């Protein structure tokens, strides 16, 4: 059992849904990342997803791309991120997962990456460019070390394949709501609820929905059919202000997250 497994057991017993904000590490600096994590934890977020900035993120929309560019513009290194997360970890009650490109994992060596991420305090990783076919060796390393490898299912994934991905995933399954890149949407696909419900009946793994979720009404619609919700770009957009005023960025994030948490019923 990882702390993510524990989290979902607890939430289920309480009849609650996971609410999981995504933030970019080191945008605009790691001191601010620590402050945001602290704030999210205080507000009662179930878990935080920390994006490791990458130079060529093809699954990301303009908001997260710009955020990654700002972070990398300050020459931040992976081990600076791990070091600062490790310092903040003892102050946090929520678990954290990293969102990280396979380019970065490969460069470190999968085994070393998992070890270092665990030392920093991460409970798992979401690797958006690692398909289930290519994931078996990393999955083995993760399983041996009790580190969750969270895989993704999308609207273009055939149903049989979705079941296979669910089998190979651990911690939870990341259900991508839209055919496209990350970023806020006004409307979500009409068949999303049906697709998630179908899969949820067939896997014991918790299912969390992400991509495009930005408004309390999205959260209200999707919370009942899922085990949790992930909000990224809507929060990252607010982080941009931190370069001007950290205070006002933190306040804006607090207001948005509070509204989304309420909508999730937490």
């Amino acid at each position, binding site marked *: 059992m990882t702390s993510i497994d524990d989290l979902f057991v607890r939430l289920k017993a309480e009849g609650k849904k996971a609410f999981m904000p995504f933030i970019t590490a080191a945008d605009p600096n790691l001191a601010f990342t620590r402050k945001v994590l602290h704030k999210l934890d205080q507000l009662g977020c179930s878990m935080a997803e920390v994006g490791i900035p990458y*130079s*060529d993120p093809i699954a990301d929309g303009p908001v997260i*791309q710009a955020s990654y560019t700002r972070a990398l513009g300050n020459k931040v290194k992976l081990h600076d991120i791990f070091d600062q997360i490790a310092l903040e970890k003892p102050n946090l009650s929520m678990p954290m997962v990293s969102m990280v490109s396979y380019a970065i994992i490969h*460069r470190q060596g999968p085994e070393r990456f998992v070890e270092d991420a665990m030392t920093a305090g991460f409970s798992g990783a979401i690797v958006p460019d690692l398909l289930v076919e290519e994931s078996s060796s990393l999955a083995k390393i993760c399983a041996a070390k009790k580190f969750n490898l969270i895989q993704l299912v999308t*609207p*273009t994934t055939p149903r049989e*394949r979705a079941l296979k991905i669910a089998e190979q995933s651990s911690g939870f399954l990341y259900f991508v709501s839209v*055919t496209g890149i990350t970023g806020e949407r006004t409307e979500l696909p009409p068949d999303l609820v049906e697709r998630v419900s179908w899969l949820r009946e067939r896997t014991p793994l918790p299912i969390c929905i992400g991509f495009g979720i930005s408004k309390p009404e999205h959260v209200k619609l999707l919370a009942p059919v899922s085990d949790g919700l992930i909000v990224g770009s809507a929060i990252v957009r607010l982080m941009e202000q931190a370069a001007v005023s950290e205070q006002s960025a933190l306040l804006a994030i607090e207001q948005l997250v509070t509204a989304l948490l309420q909508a999730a019923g937490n």
Partner: protein
Amino acid sequence: MSLAHPQEASKNLTETTATKQVPDRNGRFGDFGGRYVPETLTRALDELVVEYDRAIKDPDFHAELNELLHRFVGRPSPLYHAKRLSKQLGGAQIWLKREDLNHTGAHKINNTLGQALLTLRMKKTRVIAETGAGQHGVASATACAHFGLPCVVYMGSEDVRRQKPNVFSMRLMGAEVRPVESGSRTLRDAVNEAMRDWMSSVENTHYIIGSVIGPHPFPMMVRDFQSVIGRECREQCLSAIGRLPDTIVACVGGGSNAAGMFYPFVDDHSVRLIGVEAGGRSSAAGDHASPLSYGSPGVLHGSYSYVMQDEDGQTSDVHSMSAGLDYPGVGPEHSYWKDSKRVEYTSCRDDEALGAFDFLARNEGILTALETCHAVAKATETAKTMSPDQHLVICLSGRGDKDAAELARLRGQAW
């Protein structure tokens, strides 16, 4: 004494001998290639594998493509004996495989017509493409105009600036050129933007990748469409000189003209194959675009191959004066050929390539694309070390008209 595990034995074999029987069904050229893309694209890539497999088994597909290559593109492209150039250098006989004489002025059209036909077979109604030098953009716009498909071309804004004539040509043929302002505003960023478009449009759109890069099946498919270069060249050599050439030289950015030229010769061990990367200003990091010479294996744009990257796996900035070679990655089959030592890879600096441009212009009356000039520069150097009864072929991948304004700018001359 213990026997090697069969898999290890075969691995050792691939380290010393390249084979044409690649990639495997997972798109692996030895260790290289594969598929590192978001799940959203998997279904479209699987569809493409199936449709490509059907197409290459369908005589009608070949007939239609060959007819287009013959009457629309003007194939076969000539193999031209550059006698004056050969005499000037006093070494090997130099032959030019004239891909610059193709319709649209480069080899890129060989691939875009093939992929446009696949687009129609898959019943997709829209095409996107990336471009660096603009030759692939023009070739995509051309194929789309020919078949009546709407076409959007992503191009880094730095490349829009330095390859204006091609931008204008694309627009004349009805394509929409979208300048990309992110990152280094070059080919790498154009690929990123095209991939992002495809993430959202994959249900009705085909992405015509212009080089032997990207996730499986693109590196294999683009190589196959470009292999017409090497197949023709092989036959033309046999008929013109009665044997295979001694050496073949091609430039390598993503590596499509080189892959198409080299692939049919992989099993001909008497033929020395040389790939030339962009050496830029110097061998210092950030000054060149030579991942095979100075990079290391990593993941970029959907496949595992040599790449210019930092210690964290972040893609490094690269430089080449030629937009088509200004790319931090390279096709996975080139990485396979490098590690198996079947192809020698070297690099050529900006100033050497510029010298080759003038040399070919004044001695043969051919204006060559700046990309291709890298191959010409290394080929002239190599030819000098060979004897007059030996034969060297240069893949003359594109013509230089597009570069006239950029050349004037680089030299501080009026245009």
